[in-house]
């Protein structure tokens, strides 16, 4: 498989994240920024909910006819002078990209932000073969300097504070005056702009991802706010587009529907600053642009998700709204998830791509509060899909023994309603009596993990079923 995963150690990762003060400070920015902005953008557009339905339907339609739209797309790219390559998995994709870079004797490769490039681990592979990859999205550049994975799919360095970025810049940009002032974020941005401008102008190959591919025209689309993806693709001689096969949509009209929900869901913008539609290499009528245009279409597990319960996950347009609204993500950040895709979408996608045996903790890292589904622009039922993974994990006996015996114990009572009522009445009565003075417990047998972080309120003496019965009869009277 692809890049190394620490998903099996999710619990340890999460515990470490909760005690990381820098991280906790940085995560405060997620809670404040994204949620309000998305809501405001949605409120300003009366058709937003209808557009979400349309977006869902377009992706469903495309997935049902994916083979045919891929054929049409491939034909159109070739007709416009581009090359299409197919990669079954990450290793094949890496070899194709390396091959193209070697053909052009590339020394440096600039990169636009691309999650699939993280998934296939291309940077490491290029470096191992003597080619220097340079991430150009500001956030990606910062985490490349730190040798980290992105902690968020649209804000890769959201786990960092400005002081940490300053330290990294001072460590790496040693050609600059050591006494320069970098105390303001804008100074960091200006420095990165100047350093990366030289990299853009010197690059031999530019690698971008694709937010969408259009079957009608053979067009690849990138969406950025910085403009780095564009400088990556128009300046070097060769442009390589990396895209997983589910990025396809039928027409320009269809992609316009999706673009209307993408930026609003992601950053709360009406439209991202740069939406770029690229079709083939430089034409005879062009004065600039790449001479070679390659598209690498990557499967890496997607085709096997079609026709299963997880097909719905292939609608994802990577806006990040699910993680922006996730209380678990807010608490532990993206790195705890241990692989490329964090948050609710990662909790569903990661087990599909690297196996539920390795990523089984992720679908369990959810309170099922449902906020992710309520904001997903393509209406992916993320909690339902996480539940599917939990079921599979249980069926395959991957769930820890304590959880399994706990569930069995609960199942024993749940299947015997009389006994269940008796046991809960007895337990609630006992707890109510024991906690009558303080009204809460700071310690409970077998619940240490819970009471370590918060108190357990003492029950009032009545069970839920008793109260339900009482209120129902009260209403009927």
């Amino acid at each position, binding site marked *: 498989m692809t890049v190394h995963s620490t998903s099996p150690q999710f619990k340890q990762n999460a515990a470490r994240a909760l005690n990381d003060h820098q991280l906790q400070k940085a995560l405060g920015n997620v809670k404040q920024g994204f949620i309000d902005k998305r809501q405001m953008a949605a409120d300003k557009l009366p058709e937003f909910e209808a557009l979400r339905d349309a977006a869902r339907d377009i992706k469903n339609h495309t997935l049902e006819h994916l*083979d045919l739209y891929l054929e049409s797309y491939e034909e159109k790219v070739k007709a416009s002078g581009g090359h299409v390559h197919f990669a079954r998995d990450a290793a094949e994709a890496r070899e194709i990209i390396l091959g193209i870079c070697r053909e052009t004797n590339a020394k440096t490769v600039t990169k636009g932000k691309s999650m699939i490039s993280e998934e296939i681990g291309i940077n490491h592979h290029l470096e191992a073969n003597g080619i220097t990859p340079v991430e150009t999205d500001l956030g990606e550049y910062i985490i490349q300097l730190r040798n980290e994975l992105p902690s968020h799919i649209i804000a890769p360095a959201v786990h960092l504070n400005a002081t940490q970025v300053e330290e990294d810049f001072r460590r790496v940009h040693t050609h600059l005056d050591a006494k320069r002032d970098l105390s303001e974020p804008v100074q960091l941005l200006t420095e990165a702009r100047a350093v990366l401008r030289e990299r853009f102008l010197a690059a031999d190959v530019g690698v971008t991802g694709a937010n969408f591919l259009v079957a009608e025209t053979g067009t690849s689309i990138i969406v950025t706010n910085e403009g780095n993806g564009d400088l990556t693709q128009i300046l070097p001689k060769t442009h390589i587009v990396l895209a997983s096969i589910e990025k396809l949509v039928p027409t320009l009209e269809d992609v316009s529907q999706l673009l209307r929900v993408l930026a609003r869901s992601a950053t709360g913008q009406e439209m991202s600053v740069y939406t770029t539609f690229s*079709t083939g290499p430089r034409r005879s009528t062009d004065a600039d642009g790449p001479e070679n245009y390659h598209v690498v279409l990557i499967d890496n597990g997607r*085709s096997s998700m079609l026709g299963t319960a997880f097909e719905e996950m292939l609608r994802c347009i990577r806006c990040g709204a699910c993680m922006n609204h996730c209380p678990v993500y807010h608490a532990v950040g993206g790195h705890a998830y241990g692989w490329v895709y964090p948050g609710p979408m990662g909790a569903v996608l990661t087990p599909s791509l690297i196996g539920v045996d390795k990523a089984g903790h992720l679908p369990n890292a959810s309170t099922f509060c449902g906020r992710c589904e309520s904001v997903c622009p393509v209406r992916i039922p993320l909690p339902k899909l996480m539940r599917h993974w939990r079921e599979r994990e249980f069926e395959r006996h991957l769930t820890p023994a304590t959880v399994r015996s706990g569930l069995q114990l609960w199942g024993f009572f749940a299947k015997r309603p009389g006994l269940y009522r008796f046991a809960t009445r007895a337990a609630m009565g006992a707890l109510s009596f024991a906690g009558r003075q303080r009204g809460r417990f700071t310690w409970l047998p077998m619940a240490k993990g819970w009471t370590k972080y918060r108190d357990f309120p003492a029950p009032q003496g009545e069970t839920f079923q008793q109260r339900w019965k009482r209120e129902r009869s009260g209403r009927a009277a």
Partner: protein
Amino acid sequence: MSARDDIFANIRRSLGVNGTEKIRHQIVADRLERSPKGVIPKRGQVSGEERIALFKTMVETSLATVTEVSSAAEVPQSIALFLRNHNLPATLRMGDDPRLNAMPWSDTALEIAHGPSEGRDLNAVSHAFGGIAESGTLAMVSSADNPSTLNFLPDNHIIVVSAKDIAGDYESVWNRVRFAYGKGSMPRTVNWITGPSRSGDIEQTLLLGAHGPRRLHVVVVRD
């Protein structure tokens, strides 16, 4: 089996199809041919003055600036004034757009350079293919007339757009692109530009001028 064939075989196996079903081919061909419009927001469905007013408001919402001139002949003076007001040097790079070439640049003191940018230009002007009122977006098409590098490398980018080319929605612009380039064909690059370059990657603080232009100025030409 090649990777390509393998992937197609796997997709078809998963979907439970063999790829030769007439009805599926018909559905796909029909969608590509008709390219049905989806939900078009009412916001942009206005015409005349109202549409231009909406466009200007949305351009400003995207943190760009906008001005209006009553004829193409006034564009050079207007741009010279913009540069002067921002204490910018009186230099300007442009492509070979005949609409820009026809303007009286010699009426100004601007030092004009032609052709794509090599990354050292402070100011550039491009002519838009169209504008989109719905979001204050400029639609640029690549060619020697308006090289793509001018959209991204200069610090200050000025875009001239004809009032008559401002559409309500994206779909109307696609119709014009199809009319100009043929159904199913595209210019090498279409850039939608909505405001100046920015980044929120450091502590989610919005900063302008990440890698592209720090300033975007739009000149609407009434004609």
